[in-house]
């Protein structure tokens, strides 16, 4: 039996159905991400698990117990919020020790536990600092420590890094992952950032408008999106209309849209030989822009623009206006619903 089970979870706010019959399992010791755009219900589902929201229908089972009607304080679940996690009137030490004091842990043991946790998040020496004197990244590390020191069954994170600078985000992502693996604690992570999700998760659940659109390991989701929503949300897929694509490649029209990853498209100036398992499309470079270590070309093929990514191995290879040939293997053209 899975460690966490969501069974037929439904939640409505007024006339809005925010969660629509969600059924989801989370294995023990895994870092699972709920990924999706704003309003898809991921935060609401997380808060239902925490007990901060009550579902209108369905059950939540944690470690074999039905916790659907339990108070948040009785669930042994911890949460790191997007911001304002820390109590502003207490220093770092007291913030972290808060949960332990409630459990009436004796002072000496409490001290050891807090110091251990502070070492784990690398904040030694900051015991007496107040939250307002800490950076955003430091505050979230304290919040993390506070959530973990009470040895919860599940750690929930609600977009904890959205308010952090991009540079700092990477190191915090690694740190969270590291801690999760070291403690082997079950983690449910909510984010709208697909790069973050792919980097950190064991399993990703992609949510859209109250339902789970697709679930799987990061690579699986990245290489095999099943719906056009999944394709347009994860990776930088080109999603082409089925009929238009069929016309381009000269095949009979198919009902599904086609999703192609930009990095699977090869661009050449000379016409390539015909290949049995690849499509060759002719087009024109409309524009290009650097993205990190990749150049993204916008190529007009037929009446559509597609993106093709090329590694930035030498200086840019193609100019605007050049006529090029785009080669893409057939197996990289994924039909999506």
């Amino acid at each position, binding site marked *: 039996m899975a460690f966490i089970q969501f069974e037929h979870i439904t939640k409505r706010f007024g006339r809005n159905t925010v969660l629509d019959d969600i059924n989801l399992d989370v294995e023990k010791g895994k870092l699972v991400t709920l990924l999706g755009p704003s309003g898809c219900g991921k935060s609401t589902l997380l808060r239902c698990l925490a007990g901060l929201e009550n579902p209108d229908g369905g059950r939540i089972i944690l470690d074999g117990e039905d916790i659907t009607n339990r108070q948040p304080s009785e669930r042994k679940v911890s949460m790191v919020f997007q911001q304002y996690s820390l*109590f502003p009137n207490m*220093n770092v030490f007291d913030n972290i020790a808060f949960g332990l004091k409630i459990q009436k842990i004796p002072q000496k043991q409490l001290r050891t536990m807090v110091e251990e946790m502070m070492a784990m998040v690398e904040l030694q020496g900051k015991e007496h600092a*107040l939250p307002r004197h800490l950076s955003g990244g430091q505050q979230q590390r304290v919040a993390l420590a506070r959530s973990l020191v009470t040895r919860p069954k599940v750690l929930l994170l609600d977009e904890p890094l959205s308010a952090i600078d991009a540079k700092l985000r990477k190191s915090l992502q690694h740190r969270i992952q590291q801690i999760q693996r070291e403690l082997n604690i079950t983690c449910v992570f909510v984010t709208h950032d697909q790069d973050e999700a792919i980097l950190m998760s064991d399993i990703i659940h992609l949510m859209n408008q109250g339902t789970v659109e697709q679930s799987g390991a990061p690579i699986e989701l990245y290489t095999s999106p099943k719906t056009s929503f999944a394709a347009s949300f994860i990776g930088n897929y080109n999603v082409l209309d089925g009929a238009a694509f069929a016309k381009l490649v000269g095949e009979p029209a198919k009902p599904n849209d086609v999703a192609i990853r930009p990095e699977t498209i090869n661009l050449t100036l000379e016409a390539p030989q015909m290949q049995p398992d690849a499509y060759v499309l002719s087009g024109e470079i409309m524009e290009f822009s650097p993205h990190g270590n990749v150049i993204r070309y916008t190529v007009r093929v037929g009446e559509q623009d597609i993106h093709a990514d090329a590694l930035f191995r030498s200086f840019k290879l193609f100019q605007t206006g050049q006529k090029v040939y785009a080669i893409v293997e057939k197996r990289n053209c994924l039909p999506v619903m």
Partner: protein
Amino acid sequence: MLNEQALASANQSSIQTLQRFNGFRAKRRTYLLALLPFIVLIITYELAPLMTMVIRSFLTPKTGEFTFANYAAIFQKKLYRDAVFNSLSLSLFSAGIGIVIAFFGAKAIYESTLKRRNTFMSILNMTSNFAGVPLAFSYIILLGNAGVLIHLGRHFGISFLENYNLYSFSGLVLVYVYFQIPLGTMLMVPAFQGLKQEWREAVSLLGGGSVRYWFKVGLPVLLPSLLGTFSVLFSNAVAAYATAYALLGGNFSLLPIRISEQFVGDVLQRKEFGSALAVMLMVLMVGVTILSNWLLKRAGQQRSTYGK
């Protein structure tokens, strides 16, 4: 797309206009005339009266010599000692009760639905206008010697009501608390906006309940506003004149009434002594503000040594 040339020339002329204006400021200072009426008003009716009052409190009548005698007289004569003591205790009590009620009232507003919140706030707004003479009078018909509640007490045999004396210290506190409630509550409402929902949720997830939240997080965070509002309520009460005057006239010794007596009325005019009393009143108000700031600082210091 804008014509870049047109944009450049427009920028040029705007820069010229602003340069002309900056130069304008340095050349002709006639615009300062606009400030004149304000300065005249402030000097003649705010600063001059204030300063002359403070100075006058240190002068002997008729001779104009510097002296502390006026202040000494406040503490030597029982009438005025009582005035200071009564004003202080009346204001501390009514402000203290007021701030407690204001806390729960503002908390109720913070936690309630929009409709209830608006209704209650409208009632607060409406009744905050009810003060001074009208308020005193309505309490007289409520709890005065022939008051309605007195009759009720007599009828039902509730001796507390039957024998209640409005014209006493406790009666004054009761009436003063009435006008502290709307003011205090409305002042506290914005402070609750600063309480983040995340803190409440975090306490809950860490195993704490409502009481722990309020004592460990809510009240400490609200403390500055609570003390600030208390200061305002105190100042409001200590300088209140109309209500006390209408209720008790000169029969109960309170600072504002004693002060006005020195300047108006049948008793001989004693400006110097009256000024000293007025300065005393200001000292009480400033004193409470300083005290609450000090308390705030101490509470802040305590936090950061906690956990050593």
